C-alpha cells in the first residue's frame, strides 16, 4: 500500500489501556488559559519517567466552556486509577490555581468514576473557601490574592488508550521533521487525542528493558536507530537515514484511529520512504492499530 508514493508498512501500533481525565481550563483570554495548560502539561511526556502523560487536546470557543470564556481542554492519562487524582491535585494546585484569571472545570461530566480533585484543592482556602451548587454540580470558590479561583469539585475518569503511534522513515532528518510537523499540524485539535511529546514528535523511541543495564526499564529503540544499522538487528530500510515517531494518547480507540488517519496522510510527502509503527508483537497491549486498515477506511 502506498500513499503519495510512501509505503505504508503492513504492521500495527500496539497501545495500552490507561485512565484518562479531561480538564477544561478557561481564562480571561486564550493566552492565560494556554499559559496554565502549558505549565500543567509540562514534563508529562511518558509514564515511564513522568508518571503521567498529558497534553492540550484542543482550543475551546467561549460557547463551549462552562463560564463562556476562551479555554483549552487537556487530557491527562495514567496507568492506574490511584495515581490520576494524585497527579491532578498536585499539578492543578501548582499550575492552574496559581495562574492569573483561570478557572478549571471537568470535561468528562458523564464519566461515573469521580475524582474529588476540587474538593482536595479547596483546603488552600484555609477555611475561607466556599462552595456553590450550580446546575447540580458543586464548585469551590477559593479566595486568592487576585480574587477567586473557581474549580469544579469532581472530575470524571474513564478508560482511555495510551501509546498509539506511527513512525516516519525518511531519507534524511530534514524531511523526517517536515513530515512530522505536517502530521502534527493535521492532528492538532482532533477531539479525544493528545500528542504528549515535545511538539508532538518523539526522536527517541524506546524498546522495553535493556540489553546491558538491568535497572533500565526502557532504552533506545536500536532497531530503528539509523546509526546502529550495521551493529544491530536493524529495521531501518536502505535509503532511510532518520526516523521520527508520533505518539498518540486518547479517550478511545476510534479517536486515535481518526487522528492517525489524518496524521499519516499528512506525513506522506516527498522525502519520506515509509510509515511504520511500534509494537511488542501484540502480546502486551490490547489495542492494535493496523496501519493499512486505518488508511483504507474513513474519508
Amino acid at each position: 500500500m502506498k500513499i503519495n508514493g510512501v509505503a505504508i508498512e503492513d504492521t500495527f501500533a500496539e497501545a495500552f489501556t490507561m485512565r484518562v481525565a479531561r480538564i477544561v481550563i478557561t481564562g480571561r483570554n486564550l493566552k492565560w488559559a494556554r499559559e496554565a495548560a502549558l505549565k500543567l502539561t509540562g514534563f508529562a511526556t511518558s509514564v515511564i519517567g513522568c508518571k503521567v502523560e498529558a497534553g492540550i487536546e484542543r482550543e475551546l470557543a467561549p460557547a463551549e466552556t462552562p463560564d463562556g470564556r476562551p479555554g483549552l481542554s487537556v487530557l491527562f492519562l495514567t496507568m492506574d486509577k490511584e495515581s490520576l487524582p494524585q497527579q491532578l491535585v498536585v499539578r492543578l494546585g501548582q499550575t492552574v490555581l496559581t495562574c492569573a484569571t483561570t478557572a478549571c472545570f471537568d470535561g468528562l461530566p458523564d464519566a461515573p468514576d469521580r475524582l474529588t480533585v476540587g474538593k482536595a484543592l479547596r483546603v488552600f482556602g484555609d477555611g475561607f473557601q466556599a462552595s456553590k451548587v450550580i446546575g447540580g454540580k458543586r464548585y469551590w470558590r477559593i479566595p486568592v490574592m487576585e480574587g477567586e479561583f473557581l474549580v469544579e469539585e469532581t472530575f470524571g475518569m474513564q478508560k482511555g488508550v495510551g501509546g498509539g503511534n506511527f513512525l516516519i522513515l525518511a531519507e534524511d532528518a530534514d524531511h523526517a521533521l517536515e513530515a512530522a510537523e505536517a502530521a502534527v499540524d493535521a492532528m492538532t485539535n482532533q477531539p479525544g487525542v493528545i500528542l504528549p511529546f515535545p511538539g508532538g514528535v518523539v526522536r527517541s523511541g524506546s524498546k522495553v528493558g535493556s540489553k546491558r543495564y538491568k535497572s533500565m526499564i526502557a532504552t533506545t529503540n536500536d532497531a530503528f536507530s539509523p546509526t546502529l544499522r550495521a551493529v544491530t538487528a536493524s529495521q531501518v530500510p536502505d535509503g532511510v537515514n532518520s526516523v521520527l515517531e508520533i505518539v498518540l494518547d486518547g479517550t478511545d480507540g476510534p479517536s486515535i484511529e481518526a487522528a492517525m488517519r489524518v496524521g499519516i496522510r499528512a506525513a506522506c510527502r516527498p522525502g519520506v520512504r515509509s510509515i511504520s509503527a511500534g509494537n511488542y508483537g501484540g502480546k502486551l497491549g490490547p489495542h492494535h492499530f493496523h496501519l493499512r486498515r486505518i488508511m483504507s477506511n474513513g474519508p
Partner: protein
Amino acid sequence: MSDVVTLVLTQAPDHALVANCILPDHFAALSAQEIASLPVTHGGRAARLGDFFKVSGERSASVRLEGNLEKVEGIGAGMAGGELAIDGSVGRDLGLAMAGGRIDVRGGAGDNAGGARPGAAKGMSGGEIIVRGSVGDDAATRMRRGLLVVMGDAGRGAGRGMIAGTVVLFGKAGPGAARFLKRGSIVSLGKLERPATFRYACTYRPPHVALLFRHLRAHAGVPVNDRHLAGRYERYSGDFAELGKGEILQWVGE
C-alpha cells in the same frame, strides 16, 4: 404515563386554598384520578384537588399549572424533584422547605416563597425556584441550600437567616434583606438596603456569578443581561451579628 401533568384551575377559590399536595415527584407515580383525589384545604375545610382543578395527564414528574392561583398556597411545599411550571401568580409558601427539582413561576409569588416551616431550623434545602415576577415577605428564609431567583422585587426580609444557598434579586429588596445571614450569597442587581452588620470587602467580577447566570440563561431561559453576567460586584461580608461567612454581591456596573 404522559409527558406532562396539567392542572387547570376551573373553580376559583373563595378563600385560601392550601394545595401542598401539588408535588411533581409524587405525581410521577399517580394516575389522573389519584391526583384529583389528593386532599387540599379550602378556607380551613377539607376538599379535593379535583374540586378546583381539571387534571389532564398522569404519572409524570413534569407538571404545569394554569389559572389565577393567587389564593393557592403551599404549591411545591417539600418538593424533592421534578419540574413545576406555573402560568400565573401564586399565593404564599411556594416551594416551602423544598429539597429538589425546579419551580418556574411566570408571575409573582406571595410571602415565604422558598421559605421555612414555622419554627423549623432550616428552610429550603435544595432545588431551584425562579419567580419571573415579584415575591412577598420572607423569601428564602433560613435557606440551607438551593437557589431562589426573583426577577421582580422582593418584600421584607428576603434571605433572612440563610444558612447557605443563593438568592438572586433582579429588582429591589425590601427592608431587612440578608439579616442574620450565616453563610450563603445574595446577589443583588437592584437596590438593597444592607444591614449595618455587613462589611465591604472588594469590588470584583465573581466567577461563580457568571457561571450561575449562564446556567440560568441556558437551562431556565432567564434573560440575564451581559452587563450583569460579566459585571463588577461589590462584595459585602456578613452578617457579623451571626457567623459572618455570608455575602451580599451588589452589582455596580459593567
